[in-house]
């Protein structure tokens, strides 16, 4: 079997085992690798995994089921890379390990098998009926062709419909006329890239790309950070013709703010006093150097009366919400605990509203609130699009 990690051979050998990836960077209680506080074992951290890659390439270690937990417990959040001083693409290497695991036929966590099966069956991660994918848009009469296409993704289509509905509300309020693929839309394919099923992912990507191009879209906008990253970075790799301009809703909203096309209600007294904070999703900011930090902030601060306070760790240093790398599926308890920790940090800002721009982050944070209501129930967890929508002048 040709190992997928071998294409990163030189990068893997760059590793000088300095430990920055697994060390302590910012504030209490956590480390660079947010899992260090949970596992603490060397072989569960980025440095240990790179060490394992050396042995895998040398043949002194084989892909066996003993490696599965180590490979799939990774949040794939990119924090290790942001502190590494050498050119090591951790995100790519550790996904390549997952690809190897699949190709070696290892026994994957059953939640991963379930996601793959759901996607095979119904084109979404929930295994929910395909026909229900566009139910959220029933009343909205959205066209299926146009210059601007909105890609809600699985979460906003099925479980977090407020985000999708809010997105449309905001875009229309700005005078835009977004189209959707509706029931023709399938999962963006990212869960399969994360699980190591690259071939299956490719199929999804090709199909979606074809359909998006068929709409005549010049711009595709996604409200989910994961969909955004996948459409922007992965799609052109698989489909070189996919030359559509891909934006995240925060980027588009920032443009609309710039063009003065969003009009807000006059803030109430309560609104003026309220503090809001913002969580930077990994797949919008840190990963792949996408760096979408300024635009969400610009949008938030365009709402009159907003009192915006940064999270203690923000932007490139932001903590992963805990749901990354499919860990939400394989280890929900740990993912929720991480969310709780992030929300405790949010408490230090005094915020009552906690904004993020990824529905997977939003779901995990909401679970976090439920886990520690005593200290977190006051926090309102909302998507950025919801936040904007609720402050717009009524049409």
């Amino acid at each position, binding site marked *: 079997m040709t190992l997928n990690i071998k294409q990163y*051979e*030189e990068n893997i*050998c*760059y*590793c*000088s*085992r*300095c*430990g*920055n990836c*697994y*060390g*302590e*960077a*910012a*504030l*209490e209680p956590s480390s*660079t690798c947010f899992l260090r506080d949970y596992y*603490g*074992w*060397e*072989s569960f951290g980025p*440095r*240990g995994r790179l*060490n*394992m890659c050396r*042995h895998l390439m040398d043949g002194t*270690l084989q892909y066996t089921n*003993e*490696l599965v937990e*180590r490979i799939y417990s990774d949040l794939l959040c990119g924090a290790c890379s942001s*502190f*590494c*001083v*050498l*050119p090591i693409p951790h995100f790519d290497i550790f996904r390549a390990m997952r690809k190897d695991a699949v190709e070696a036929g290892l026994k994957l966590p059953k939640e991963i098998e379930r996601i793959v099966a759901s996607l095979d069956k119904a084109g979404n991660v929930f295994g929910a009926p395909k026909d229900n994918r566009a139910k959220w848009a029933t009343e909205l009469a959205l066209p299926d062709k146009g210059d601007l296409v909105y890609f809600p993704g699985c979460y906003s289509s099925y479980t977090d419909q407020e985000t999708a509905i809010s997105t449309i509300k905001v875009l229309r309020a700005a005078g835009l006329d977004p189209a959707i693929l509706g029931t023709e839309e399938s999962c963006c394919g990212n869960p399969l890239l994360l699980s190591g099923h690259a071939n299956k992912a490719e199929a999804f990507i090709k199909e979606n790309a074809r359909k998006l191009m068929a709409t005549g879209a010049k711009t595709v906008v996604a409200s989910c950070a994961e969909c955004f990253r996948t459409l922007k970075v992965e799609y052109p790799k698989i489909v070189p013709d996919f030359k559509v301009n891909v934006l995240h809703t925060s980027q588009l909203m920032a443009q609309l703010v710039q063009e003065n096309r969003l009009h807000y209600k006059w803030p109430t007294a309560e609104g003026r006093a309220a503090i809001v904070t913002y969580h930077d999703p990994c797949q919008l900011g840190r990963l792949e150097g996408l760096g979408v930090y300024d635009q969400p902030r610009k949008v938030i601060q365009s709402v009159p009366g907003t009192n915006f306070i940064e999270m203690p760790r923000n932007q490139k*240093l932001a903590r992963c919400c805990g749901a990354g790398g499919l860990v939400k599926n394989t280890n929900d308890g740990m993912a929720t605990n991480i969310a709780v920790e992030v929300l405790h940090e949010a408490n230090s800002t005094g915020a009552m509203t906690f904004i993020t721009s990824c529905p997977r982050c939003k779901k995990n944070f909401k679970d976090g609130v439920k886990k520690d209501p005593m200290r977190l129930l006051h926090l309102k967890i909302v998507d950025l699009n919801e936040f904007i929508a609720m402050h717009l002048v009524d049409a």
Partner: protein
Amino acid sequence: MNKKIIKQLAEIVGVQHVSDDPIELMVHSRDASPLFEEFPVVVVRPGTAQEVSEVLGVANKNNIRVITKTGATTPWGASVPRQKGLMIIQMGRMNRVLDIDENAMVVTVEAGCTWTRLERTINPRGWRVGVMPHSCGMSSGVAGNITAGSGTSQYSAKFGLQIDNIMGLEVVLPNGSIIKTGSGAIDGAKQFDKNSGTPADITGLFWGSAGMFGILTQVTLRMYAMPVVTQYQLHAFETPSAAQRMIYRVQKNDIASGLFFFSRESVATTGWPLPIAHLVTGSIEGSNQTEVDGKAETYRTIARDEGGQEIKDIGAVLGAIYTDKLMRYTFGNETYFPGGGRFCLNTAFPIMRLEEYLSRTAVMGKKHGINPFGVVFIAKNTLYGLQYFPYYEREPEQRRKALAAGAEAMEANAAAGMGSWCMAGILAPAFYSRMNKNTFAFIESIKKAVDPNNIMVAPWEN
């Protein structure tokens, strides 16, 4: 490892803090050095000094030999098992800042507390440590820096080595006794002064002795007020002899707080927009601008006198060496060489032998077809040179050459009367063979007294 022993260890530290999982053991066979070494038989992570003591009890009873580690970031192989059958005691769980005593100007931390955690705790209160290690502050533990004997930084010019700034320790001896060195050895007295508290200053025993005399569990360090004003300097020199004269005069006149030397070869690898020359960078601190200006003027005069060319735009150096708030700097930055491997040679010598040192290591490297490059710390009257012999990790022949070149350079430097400050791992051979026999016997006899069952691995083994 015998499952019964694993069980006993689990009863001490908790089952989630013991591992004999083959993959976990495998990843502990490497550290930041070029070495590929033995696998340990068990890794244990104690949470308190009492647990450390009990774990050593098990080791003693069952004749299991022990090494200790935290971040495993020494480039010379101090943190890997170099023989079979070892237990690794991993100190990373014991990572808290325990006490900040602003009156005594000391801070006490657990052994595995990282430098980053420590600095970020005390910086907001206006304090800093003297010697924040040059690299790997995010992953290396405070105790490791002492145990490895490696504590240098660009601020060693003023603050000396790490041990100069240690006010006391809590140590678990190989026989399991928990002791304090320094003023804390007196019941009820606080730990703030290493010069009192015991007949004979035993703190120093634990410096650079690779844990063979005991396992550090707490460290008390001096804190210093953040300087009110700091100014940075950078000068380029054509020759190392000019640079060494400048460094000597600056140290003699006690002007700079920080000093650091980049050899021409290492500057060439950085890609910084700077002249390819020997660079000396300094930081000058004081309580007000006029004082700092005064010192800086003297500094610059000396540099000019010795032919140094002042470089005004020092942004790149500043960020990397001095002001990175995240303390990301590691020797990885210095590798500057794709392929990742390096033999890191540590040599200590008086300031005026810098040129000799550089030329000798270059000659040794050339003999084997390797181009070494390096940096030098300055601590009071001594220079601490780190010379890297780089190679591609994937090319065994090149690796062999680099290791051979480094070893030969080490021997040559030692034969010329230069020392090493870290005498373990790949740096051990040249130095133990040259050590005064009586001194070595003396150290061995202390080890015997303190570790009668010989469970702690000594740095001169293998």
